[in-house]
């Protein structure tokens, strides 16, 4: 069964509650879903907003990525997300990070996630789950990218 990694992010409202709700849905949608620790991270791009909580989930699925994407969008909406600035504040954000070794560039969905290797709050939790992951597009290993760039990336810490 294909393996999927999903990034969870939240910085509005009941942040723990949003992550908890997302975790429940992901556990039912994916088989053998496992979760990283929760990270606290500073905003990127649009700085005047609260810090985020981030987490990564890994699981197996028979569903195709677009079908899962639509389900994730529905969940984001259910948690109160409305249209807003691209990197702006949101109650819940679910991004597909990768789907097996797929490389898919399309207007609705790009996998692996185009900014996966630039985000500390994605790389750090993902490393807990799949330290050996290699980006099929660039051939770069996650661990090596992290070692080389973590000092330049935005701040992020495991939540105590």
């Amino acid at each position, binding site marked *: 069964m294909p393996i999927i990694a999903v990034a969870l992010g939240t910085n509005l409202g009941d942040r723990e509650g949003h992550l908890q709700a997302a975790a429940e849905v992901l556990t039912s949608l994916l088989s053998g879903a496992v979760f990283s620790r929760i990270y606290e991270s500073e905003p990127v791009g649009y700085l005047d907003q609260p810090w985020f909580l981030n987490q990564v989930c890994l699981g197996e699925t028979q569903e195709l990525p677009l079908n899962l994407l639509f389900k994730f969008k529905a969940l984001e909406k259910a948690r109160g997300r409305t249209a807003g600035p691209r990197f702006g504040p949101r109650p819940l954000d679910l991004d597909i990070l990768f789907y097996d070794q797929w490389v898919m560039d399309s*207007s609705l969905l790009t996998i692996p996630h185009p900014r996966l290797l630039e985000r500390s709050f994605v790389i750090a939790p993902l490393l807990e789950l799949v330290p050996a992951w290699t980006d099929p597009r660039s051939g770069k290993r996650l661990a090596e990218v992290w070692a080389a760039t973590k000092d330049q990336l935005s701040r992020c810490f495991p939540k105590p």
Partner: protein
Amino acid sequence: MFSLRLLAASNPEEIRKEFARIGVSPEGAEIMLGKGEFIVVKIGNLSAQAANILKQEMLAKGGEVALGKQMAYLGAEKGEAIIMGTRTQYQRLLDMLPRQPFGLSALAQDLNRLLRDLDQRPSPLTIKNRCFEWGKRTYIMGIINLTPDSFSGDGLFGQEHLITKVLRQAETFFAAGADLLDIGAESTRPGATPVSEEEEKERLLPVLEILAKETPLPISVDTYKPGVAKAALAAGADVINDIWGLQRDPEMAKVVAAAQAPVIVMHNKSTPGYTDLMAEVSSFLRASMDLAIAHGLPREKIIIDPGIGFGKLPEDNLTIINRLDELKSLGAPILLGVSRKSVIGHVLNLPVDQRLEGTSATVAIGICRGADLIRVHDVKEMVRVARMTDALVRR
């Protein structure tokens, strides 16, 4: 050590032979054949949503869909895509496409037809008691010109005993192995002066009537005028060869359908200039076929011709000959006419009376690329070229 070598097994029949050679079980062969046939299809006018789903589904089956930047990132509403995969992957795609939204069920029908036509030879066609079994061998059409100004230098008009000369030429063509005669009374070479319908009939009909009685070969009449076509069919013509693909005059489709006469539809354009040459030629020919079918002509009575030298630059003509096999997806027998044409003069820098070798090259490659019928002046020579090429590629 392992005696690795490449197999030139590009079509299912060749793959099947290679399977048999190493003793693959018949059941296994049926399952695997489709995985050895790789197919690339270009689609236009695809919506962005449809493209997303298509891409995902084909990726899931191990194939791929390439989208332009416009489609992938900039959210263009419609665009083009290139699908790549084995026949098996396409079949699995077709299992799910009909249930999808965004026009994908219509796409499934087109794709299904394309894949079906790809491995099917066009249905045989009987004209004047001669059966044309497309794919079995290459058929030869001999050109008889009644025009005073024919570019290929053998216009017979104005000479004494015109009818005698035509009959003699028809006999020579028959003896040399021609399968069909093509007779025209209006020169269509670039720059030729058009003739009136009356004049065309006057030149054509008396000769045609006698020729039709004398020759055992079916006769095709080269005209785009419905009045001429109608009179010619009444005078014994068997096929209408329209250089405007039934699209110049709306009456033309009615005339051929009323007579249930086989028709050759040719691609043509007033002035050269293409953004996507093969796409344009192909969609023009599809439109011609649809027109004939809509008027009640059976699909198997339509022959397509890409129209080498008509509204095309030399480069365009060379491209079409070399990519002729792309037209197989239309599911119709393909006529190729390059005999002595200016594209050969352009490449070899030779006058019209010295283009025999150049013509031979186009015939040989045309057959390799799927031509079923070849229209030529030099019947004896081109029958030999076709037989030799058939021996090489039709086995």
